[in-house]
């Protein structure tokens, strides 16, 4: 009885969508007119041969893995600095919480302003003599994708900082006292003691971040709309465009299924392994 609502929720948000999507992907459907006729594997054929969806998936995977690892390292270093060198980090942690809380659309707009040809970054670069003409960073094949990653890193590194800081706080003090009495150097302590003890927590944090990074949509929507030349076409954005701009629900269904399968293949094994490891602790 206590579970009825959650079952309904799971049904509405997980099981029903899956069944519905499988249906869609084998049909010719538009947003206005669903299930016009069954078309077998046509949508899948078209997805692999007629669209760039596989490259979009590759983009998403590269994005998720890169940002989650970069942010983990950055976030851990910042957390370690705060933990070891700042006595009362309340103000700092409050400040660092802000990017995390900012609506991603606003994050996108802020970075768009910073990176625009008339923005501060461009004027900084030209003052430093690195460029002669203002460049369109977000419109440049070389810089667009890293820019999305930069904005994402700005928003999400604080998440890692807060979680790793808590993980650091939960480490047993006496081990470090023992190490200090043994004469361990700070660097030795970090690599031989802190890091191995943090490893399980860090793995969890990495996973959570990676799962979220797979879902990225807002930043691309605001900053680049998938461009230039499909450089930043992450899957959620591609599917959204197929469904709500091109109205081809059948193809969108097929794309979503493929995307879901890829994400599951990448994350689920680690998720469950991690869960089991956690349960054993």
């Amino acid at each position, binding site marked *: 009885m*206590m579970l009825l*609502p*959650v079952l*309904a929720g799971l049904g*509405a*948000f*997980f099981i029903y*969508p899956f069944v*519905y*999507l499988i249906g*869609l992907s084998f049909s010719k459907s538009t947003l206005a007119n669903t299930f016009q006729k069954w078309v077998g594997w046509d949508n899948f054929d078209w997805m692999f041969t007629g669209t760039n969806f596989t490259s979009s998936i590759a983009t998403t995977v590269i994005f998720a893995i890169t940002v989650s690892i970069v942010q983990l390292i950055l976030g851990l270093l910042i957390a370690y*600095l705060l933990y*070891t*060198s700042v006595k009362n980090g309340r103000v*700092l*942690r*409050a400040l*660092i919480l*802000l990017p995390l*809380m*900012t*609506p*991603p*659309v*606003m994050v996108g*707009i*802020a*970075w768009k*302003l*910073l990176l625009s040809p*008339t923005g*501060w970054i461009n*004027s900084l670069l030209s003052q430093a003599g690195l460029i002669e003409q203002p460049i369109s960073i977000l419109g440049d094949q070389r810089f667009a994708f890293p820019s999305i990653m930069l904005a994402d890193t700005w928003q999400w*590194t604080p998440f890692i900082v807060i*979680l790793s800081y*808590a993980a650091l706080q939960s480490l047993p*003090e006496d081990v*470090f006292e023992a*190490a*200090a009495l043994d*004469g361990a*150097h700070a660097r030795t*302590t970090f690599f031989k003691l802190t890091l191995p003890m943090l490893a399980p*927590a860090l793995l*969890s*944090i990495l996973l959570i971040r990676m*799962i979220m990074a797979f*879902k990225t*949509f807002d930043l691309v*929507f605001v900053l680049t709309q998938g461009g230039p030349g499909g450089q930043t076409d992450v899957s*959620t954005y591609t599917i*959204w465009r197929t*469904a*709500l701009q091109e109205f081809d629900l059948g193809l*969108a269904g097929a794309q979503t299924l493929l*995307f*879901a399968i890829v994400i*599951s293949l990448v994350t*689920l094994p680690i998720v469950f392994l991690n869960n089991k490891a956690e349960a054993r*602790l």
Partner: protein
Amino acid sequence: MRTTIQQPNSPQNGETFQFKPELLTLSRTWKPKAEEGRLRKMIFVWIALAVIVIFFMLPIAYLFSTSFKSPVDVVDGSFFPNAVEAENWPRAFAQVPLWSFMRNSILAAAFSVFVTLGVAVMATYAMLKLEVGKSFLPDMILASYVAPPIIALIPMFVLMQKLGLLNSIAGMVLIYGLMNVPVAFWLMRSFVLQVPKALDEAAWLDGASYFKTFFRVTLPLLYPAMIATGLICFILSFNELLFAQAMTFDSDSRTLPVGISLFQGERRVNFGQMAAASSAGIIPVYFIALFCQKWLIGGLTQGGVK
């Protein structure tokens, strides 16, 4: 490599080894003995902290600063406006129905929190404490969290259309309320597990039914967790774009992220006004972030790290 503890008979310095209580605090901060080293370290720490703070404040600061720039200043590329132009703010509010967007966002987010907590708290308790559904249901919830929300977008769109809830705040309340259940489950999990099983058992032996035990014993102990979870879910809903922009079509139901993303997408948009509108949209969440910092950090860390 230097060691922190001088060897008892080290010939370089005549001092003998003495136990110093300060050594015990070395665990957290390794303090080199030399005054010079300490100074160097402090300078390094200050520079590092300054870089960190500047990096994380930069875009926000730039956004606010741009909101006070005249159209001429905007293309100038300088960080601060040459002359403060407050006009952008009232103009932004006149151009875009920001108040409606904000009202919609707050309503959708606030009511969705009640849906989420109503569903998640009891279910989390039943699954973890009464072990209903064994590990299957928790695994399902985990899997549904891993699945990207785009999966649900099209089917939910069609469902909402059939229910007549498209383009309505009620529809967004329902969507967000259910969408955040896995997050809430994940956040509540460790809080629920922290309530000792013996408390439930004591209540059962005292004659309390399973429902009464939940409402009179467990629930009161979970209030702090629910506040933290509720705040996080509120912010998630408040910030959400994908579903809102697919399912709301006018200013009676559009949320802030949708409204502002559309505003910034217009061709001849004034950067200063765009920045002003965005800044205005950020203020409610920053308000929460600053005043409920303790709850937010507590909620995030309890859920994230066991």
